[in-house]
């Protein structure tokens, strides 16, 4: 165990610099929630004023249009909130030529729960903010799924009308994709990635804070759409034009929220790229990086290249709906020459790579866990890294497989089928390498490992149905059916979510300094595993039998299976409460975690749990690979003795027993 493990935890030290709490009107002048509320108010007022002025200038009647005010406010008011909260303070001081506050690290570390509700530049605090916020939206999205399954338990309409139902599945998918899976991976990586490469923080801490605070803006906006006149956005998470461009104003809550979530993704990805490229500890060559770092490097490449495309597609929708552009307007009545298929091409050019944005970080998590818990080096480390890069490249060549029945030119389907099937090759390399890592290992079957193994088998099923879906003639029949719903849930629930659970359990001791309840963890795994399969496996069948997706009502012949699916899904929902209970109680009063409870070699385990505010009191030097388990005397990183250290502080092997 390294000497740094004895460093005081942030919770037991006091903040280096605590400004006296503001009171009275002063509260509206310092960065914080009071000023954020004021900023939001002023933002809305400014947007209403701007809107009324422009309409006056153009002579529009009526001068006040609720629809226009909503759209402009959704775009503008969040900036008032973010400025009020203090996300831009440093840059504004600098731009105005005023003395920017010297970096006193007062916004680093968290010393009370309140620090998690401030603009904080500590990557560990931001990581925790990300994970907790995303899990809030996970539970909201899950509750929405429960409402949908209640409606679908029987044919006919019982609980909600079809308008609300269309809103429910649209918000469900949007929240869980844009506010849960993508950001929760970014959050976990935010916490552990700088530690893993031996960096004191991310490359751009202020940008990192801004990236986080864009998220709640996007999430709250999507949820608020339920209060919008005309109901929530109801054209699916795909928001296909021209349905999306002709919807009530609730649609704009999606269109604009995606811009905020997307900007957050892009900024974080840039941050990861620069951090990984420039801030690795001495000796940490690319080929000594843990696979989680490789996975986030690959994911970030995907994000910076692909995410601008969804931003563009949603700006097109915004312009079509708000300002009467005709990008996608090809309705018979309008005589416009818009191109409806263009939306789908631009959208899927992001949204197919997005599937890998939602999976590659999970591959990284599972690689960490399987190596540590099987006590063996990752089998074929270099191929594991290369296959990630292969998926990045191939991921950009398959988007039109979502459009096999869209009416695009027929010949393009065949090359897209081939590239789609070929992606199974690098993915297969990963799965086989994990299996070979298990072979002859010493398997510690605790909660993180169970979720990793559950991921291996369930993701294989999702991959198999994915290969089936590459085959054009079969897809012509099953596209837009429950077979697709089954496939994406095997990939995103059995795949991504299982790796997220695995990762949260695995790094819980590092993030909170506490151990979780292993028995509850195991119960959580088994209930989730069983009810996940009972919920989603039958969807393959009813899909092939002919049940379309995104319907509130369905033919009598599917009634039996749907009832069974709904019952299973309620138990699946309940199983996540075990997780919630375990995490909350363990965080509050679980046993203290040791620095390295899993005997892992990677650097994040060589510092205390939770880590010191600046991660490493002494910069580590990396001298070997990250997964040298079973190699006698192998070392990944060492902490060189400090100048003032006494003679006994020899270079120490990190992660020794």
């Amino acid at each position: 165990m390294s000497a740094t493990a004895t460093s005081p935890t942030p919770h037991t030290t006091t903040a280096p610099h605590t400004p006296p709490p503001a009171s009275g009107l002063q509260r509206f002048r310092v960065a914080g929630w009071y000023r954020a509320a004021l900023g939001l108010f002023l933002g809305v007022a400014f947007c209403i004023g701007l809107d009324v002025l422009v309409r006056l200038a153009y002579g529009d009647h009526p001068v006040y249009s609720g629809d226009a005010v909503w759209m402009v406010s959704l775009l503008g008011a969040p900036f008032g909130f973010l400025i009020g909260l203090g996300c831009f303070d440093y840059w504004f001081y600098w731009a105005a030529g005023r003395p920017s506050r010297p970096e006193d690290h007062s916004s680093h570390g968290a010393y009370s729960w309140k620090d998690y509700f401030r603009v904080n530049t500590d990557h560990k605090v931001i990581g925790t903010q990300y994970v907790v916020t995303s899990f809030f939206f996970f539970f909201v999205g899950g509750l929405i799924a429960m409402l949908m399954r209640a409606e679908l338990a029987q044919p006919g309409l019982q609980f909600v009308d079809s308008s609300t139902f269309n809103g429910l599945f649209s918000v469900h998918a949007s929240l869980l994709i844009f506010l849960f899976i993508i950001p929760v991976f970014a959050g976990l990586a935010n916490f552990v990635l700088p530690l893993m490469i031996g960096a004191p923080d991310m490359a751009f801490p202020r940008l990192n804070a801004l990236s986080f605070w864009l998220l709640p803006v996007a999430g709250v906006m999507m949820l608020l759409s339920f209060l919008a006149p005309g109901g929530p956005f109801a054209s699916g998470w795909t928001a296909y034009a021209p349905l999306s461009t002709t919807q009530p104003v609730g649609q704009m809550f999606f269109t604009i929220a995606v811009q905020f979530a997307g900007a957050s993704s892009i900024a974080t990805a840039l941050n990861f790229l620069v951090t990984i490229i420039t801030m690795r500890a001495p000796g940490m060559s690319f080929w000594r990086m843990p696979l989680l770092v490789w996975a986030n490097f690959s994911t970030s490449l995907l994000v910076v290249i692909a995410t601008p495309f969804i931003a563009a597609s949603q700006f097109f929708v915004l312009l079509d709906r708000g300002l009467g552009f005709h990008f996608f307007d090809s309705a018979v009545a309008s005589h416009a020459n818009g191109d409806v298929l263009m939306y789908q091409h631009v959208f899927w050019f992001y949204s197919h790579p997005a599937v890998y944005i939602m999976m590659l970080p999970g591959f990284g998590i599972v690689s960490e866990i399987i190596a540590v818990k099987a006590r063996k080096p990752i089998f074929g480390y270099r191929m594991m890294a290369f296959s990630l890069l292969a998926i990045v490249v191939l991921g950009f060549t398959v988007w039109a497989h979502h459009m096999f029945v869209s009416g695009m030119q027929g010949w393009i389907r065949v090359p897209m089928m081939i590239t789609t099937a070929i992606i199974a090759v690098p993915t297969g390399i990963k799965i086989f390498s994990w299996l070979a890592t298990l072979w002859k290992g010493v398997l510690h079957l605790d909660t993180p490992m169970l979720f990793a193994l559950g991921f291996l088998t369930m993701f294989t099923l999702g991959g198999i149905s994915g290969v089936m879906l590459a085959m054009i003639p079969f897809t012509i029949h099953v596209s837009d059916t429950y077979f697709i719903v089954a496939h994406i849930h095997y990939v995103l629930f059995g795949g991504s979510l299982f790796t997220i659970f695995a990762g949260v359990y695995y790094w819980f001791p590092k993030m909170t300094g506490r151990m979780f309840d292993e028995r509850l963890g195991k119960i959580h795994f088994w209930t989730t595993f069983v009810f996940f399969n009972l919920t989603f496996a039958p969807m393959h069948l009813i899909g092939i039998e002919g049940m379309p997706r995104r319907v509130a009502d369905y033919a009598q012949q599917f009634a039996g299976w749907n009832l069974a699916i709904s019952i299973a899904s309620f138990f699946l929902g309940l199983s996540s409460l075990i997780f919630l209970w375990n995490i909350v109680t363990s965080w509050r009063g679980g046993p203290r975690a040791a620095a390295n409870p899993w005997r892992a070699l990677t650097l994040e385990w060589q510092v205390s749990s939770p880590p010191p505010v600046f991660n490493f009191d002494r910069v580590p030097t990396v001298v070997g690979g990250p997964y040298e388990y079973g190699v006698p005397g192998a070392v990944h990183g060492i902490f060189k003795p400090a100048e003032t250290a006494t003679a006994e502080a020899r270079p120490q092997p990190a992660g020794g027993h």
Partner: protein
Amino acid sequence: MSAESRRESGGRQDYLRVAVVIVLASLVTIPIALLIHWFPTQASVESRKIDTLYDVLLIFSVPMFWLVATTVLFSVWRWRMRPGEEELDGPPIHGNTRLEVVWTAFPAVMMVGLCTYAFVTLHSIEKTHRHMTVEVMAQQFAFRYTYPDGPGGKPFSTNDLYVPTGEQVEFKVHAKDVLHDFWVPAFRLKTDAVPGITTAIKVTPSRVGTYAVVCAELCGLGHALMRSTVHVVPPEQFKTWLAKQKTTGA
């Protein structure tokens, strides 16, 4: 498990055990998978070919699943940590180039094979024969059908879709407002109805009966209720039906 037997495990005998389980499990589950009544009625020539493609995919998929599941379960059974092994590490195996080449090449060959077969199937179901044409107009939330060659050679429109068996029918699909999708599950074929362009599918109905037409692309409030029916009738009956229709103009 003693350290000795751990060292000796994972050899030829264990490979053989895993292989036997994969083969046995596949032999049991492939017939079950094929016996499951997956598809709705086969009512077109194309549906038979698509169902066969799915059967072939199942035959390839099931062993792939058992390969992964068996290896995971076998490793758990054979090499899980036993009491007293808390500090033990596995053997430092970093890779095996031959094995990695095999598991890169084998799936690649399999994928190329499956794609070739799928391409052949696609080619055969989309081949054009002598055919009649039906225009489909999709709008929120109904389908309307136009026969260009009604009685007297004039087009007429109807809400009832009738097609004869044994003759290829080309459905030319249009959309008036937003995206829809013209899908007949019993034919296994669908295409989006896209404003501004005409899309098409070609079907050769083969079985007399009445089947559902389903809108399969989210099109708004009434999407779940946007349904129609297709009546597949013998050719003579189709001629009689056609003759009875009043010409309504295009």
